């Protein structure tokens, strides 16, 4: 997947744990882990909205396009 999730870096910068974020935005820790580990197939706008509000960031700070290396 060429879309990388930078949630770990953001959480580290904000000195916040994944559990705290899950509590703040009302999303289960399991679902947030799926997002953090890049296993998610899709992200709802409502989820992005909640994360951006909680971490005071832009969607582009969470998601980044990293092209796959040519084989």
């Amino acid at each position, binding site marked *: 997947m060429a879309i990388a999730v930078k949630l770990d870096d953001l959480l580290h910068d904000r000195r916040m744990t994944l559990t705290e974020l899950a509590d703040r935005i009302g999303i289960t820790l399991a*679902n947030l882990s799926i997002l953090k580990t890049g296993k*998610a197939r*899709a*992200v709802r706008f409502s989820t992005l909205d909640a994360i951006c509000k909680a971490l005071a960031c832009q969607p582009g700070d969470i998601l980044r396009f990293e092209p796959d290396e040519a084989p």
Partner: protein
Amino acid sequence: MSHSYSAALPVAHIVLKFLVVLNWLSGAAILALLVVMPHEQWIMAEFGLSPSPEAERLVMGLRAIAVVGLATIPLNHALLKRLLAIVGTVRAGDPFVAANANRLQAIAWALLALQLLSLVVGAIADAISTPAHPLHFDAGFSINGWLAVLLTFVLARVFAEGGLMREDLERTV
């Protein structure tokens, strides 16, 4: 609606289990007919025939139909067992899985094979039936049967797509 579903599924489960047993019993009966009672005289006596080339043809035809009937037993078994598994997943509340799409695909192929065997039985029955000894088998071409084959293939595809959508939904955050 949910009440009718909750009642229908246990009933379907029991009926399918009963049909699995009935299918094997039918197979045993056909096998007994072929192996234990193969005597032409017995068959001729049952049909009130006197020894003649026509009577021999009739006996051969009936034996061929019995062999085809025997071939339908494993097909029926494969079909019923997969249907039973699908009912199980519906009862568990998780029917849109890739396994069910594969099961429906296998059921569709089994139905197709059964329709082809039905054509064979119909053809044999037509070949050995005479005005003196007419044979009426519930076999041959059936528009409903072929529609069921088509419908099951389409349904298998629908389940495959449904399974993919379900998987996407599960991994949507």
